[in-house]
């Protein structure tokens, strides 16, 4: 773009070789400068949260100091938050909800994706399209009727209410990308399995699941991140602190009163954000594969 525009006016043949090299160097510079600026801006908020979480309350309240630096680091906020039983409760709730939802999602979507990808049956095409359409339905469109439905089942203010509704967030996308992964397995593989004497369940469990493992990992990561980060449903359906998962718990219970305990809020938020970040750090390639699969597969 701006870097390469220089190539348009051709000054003369002698100039060419030198200009090509300088053009390339110029492009490199633009690239690195853009990336560095982007990295600074993208990482500033989490960095600032980290800095704040290690500051003493006195330091946080001191206007005169550079807020981006720490003078006397302290673990007091982390100690406080970890000894706060309600925070531990949030954490356990999040774990219960996420674990249940991930297992449910994977069972539902792997079974359905296998049937949709391999066992052509009446309406399978329509259903596959339907799956994609439900994926496009945002949670904020249906949370009010769902609030009534969950309320009618007596599951408001309960983690089980969340386990019931979270699959609407995870199942469609996971099914969609699993259809894509399963469809990419060569057809001869199931025919070989069929001749080898496998029934449908054996074919799924012994052939498809192991072969599509990268897809299964990507879908599991997706289900995990989405259930861990879900915000609309718990905000709407859970008002008692005891049953809150981490996201809404940190936002609503740690932020209260007039004087905000910023250090503790930041420590809590960071610890709540830690599990998805750790998963991302270790399984980045699967994470990104899952992210881009939605538009490029299926």
């Amino acid at each position, binding site marked *: 773009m701006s870097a390469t525009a220089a190539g348009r006016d051709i000054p003369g043949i002698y100039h060419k070789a030198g200009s090509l090299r300088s053009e390339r160097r110029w492009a490199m510079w633009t690239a690195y400068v853009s990336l560095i600026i982007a990295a600074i801006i993208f990482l500033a908020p989490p960095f600032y949260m980290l800095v704040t979480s290690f500051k003493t309350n006195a330091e946080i309240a001191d206007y005169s100091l550079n807020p981006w630096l720490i003078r006397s680091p302290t673990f007091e906020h982390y100690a406080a938050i970890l000894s706060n039983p309600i925070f531990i409760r949030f954490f356990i709730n999040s774990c219960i909800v996420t674990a249940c939802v991930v297992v449910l999602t994977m069972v539902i979507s792997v079974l359905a994706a296998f049937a949709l990808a391999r066992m052509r049956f009446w309406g399978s095409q329509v259903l596959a399209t339907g799956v994609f359409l439900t994926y496009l339905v945002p949670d904020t469109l249906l949370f009010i009727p769902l609030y009534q439905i969950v309320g009618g089942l007596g599951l408001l203010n309960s983690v089980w209410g969340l386990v019931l509704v979270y699959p609407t967030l995870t199942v469609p996308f996971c099914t969609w990308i699993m259809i894509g992964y399963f469809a990419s397995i*060569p057809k*001869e593989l199931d025919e070989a399995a*069929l*001749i080898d*004497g*496998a*029934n449908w369940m*054996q074919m799924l469990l012994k052939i498809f699941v*192991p072969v599509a*493992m990268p897809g299964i990992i990507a879908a599991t990561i997706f289900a995990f991140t989405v259930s861990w980060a879900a915000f609309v449903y718990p905000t709407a359906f859970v008002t008692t602190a005891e049953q809150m998962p981490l996201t809404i718990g940190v936002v609503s219970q740690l932020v209260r009163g007039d004087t905000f305990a910023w250090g503790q809020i930041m420590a809590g938020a960071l610890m709540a954000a830690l599990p998805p970040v750790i998963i991302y750090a270790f399984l980045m390639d699967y994470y990104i594969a899952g992210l881009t699969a939605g538009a490029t597969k299926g």
Partner: protein
Amino acid sequence: MAQVSLRKIVKAYEGDVQAVKGINLEIDDHEFVVLVGPSGCGKSTTLRMIAGLEEITDGEIAIGGAVVNDIPPRDRDIAMVFQNYALYPHMSVYDNMAFGLTLRKFPKAEIDKRVKEAARILDITPLLERKPKALSGGQRQRVAMGRAIVRDPKVFLFDEPLSNLDAKLRVQMRTEIKKVHQTVRTTTVYVTHDQVEAMTLADRVVVMNQGIIEQVGPPQELYHHPATKFVAGFIGSPAMNFMPARLEEASGALNVTLANGTSLPVPDSRSARYRPHVGKALLFGIRPEHLTDEKTMDKDNLAPLSLTPEVIEPMGMETLAHFRQDGAEITARLDPATPAEVGVPLRLLAHMDQMHLIDPTNDKVL
């Protein structure tokens, strides 16, 4: 071990497209039968119907005397080798070969014995612990065959197993397959589009075209006595030459007269067969190897004709010369020492004992 019978097999797809149009075929126990034909001729569909991977629209397939139309693939006691091998990528070679037996709940010791034996036959014992990814094309091919052998099925089915290999490996694996068949003697149905593969492997070759069987027979028979124009043109490489001609009788002897007036005498042995067709416009068929120059020929019944080469292809052990005569492409196999030149008329000899006459109205060889 078993015979396989196809009786009036039809495969129709939606919209009345018939891929296989009522074929009959009896395959004997221990026999190696090759289905060959151009792509879309129905050979793969036929094989897949034997395997149970395609439903049979009409007719009956019997394996070992029992009709299997309604039996799912796993209970037909067959094994299949696929074009892309279809090895399970997450399993070791050993597990790939053992999978079918494991699913059938064979005892561990028996599975182990069979896998080791098959690995020995195929010479892949050192590869047993590897994953398919770590194998070369030829090795994968062997594993795919091993997976079939361990099952000890009634029938082996091969679906173009060599077409993913490079030319050199293909020849090597061809020999390998033949050797394995000589060892295990299992009834085999083999599908290919390559007529050389068909000729070299088969006890009997089945030539298919457009959903029907053109001819069934041992390789030599198909080569020397093709039943139809299609078979005559399909078997043999380079393909048989066809020239428009007329059968004429002059003083008791029969002659084939080409469009350019050249008259070739028909051997006496064929006179009785051809006499009813005197006066008809026919196709004169002769293979390139039977259309050659004086150097190679010291046989009876040679008929001379003169043609002007358009392209000369020296191959080393022989030279191919291409001509155009009366709208037909003609190829001749020459001795490499023959001085042939583009544009210079060449005197050729047709080996009339090897001639064919084809009725163009029904494409049957007379």
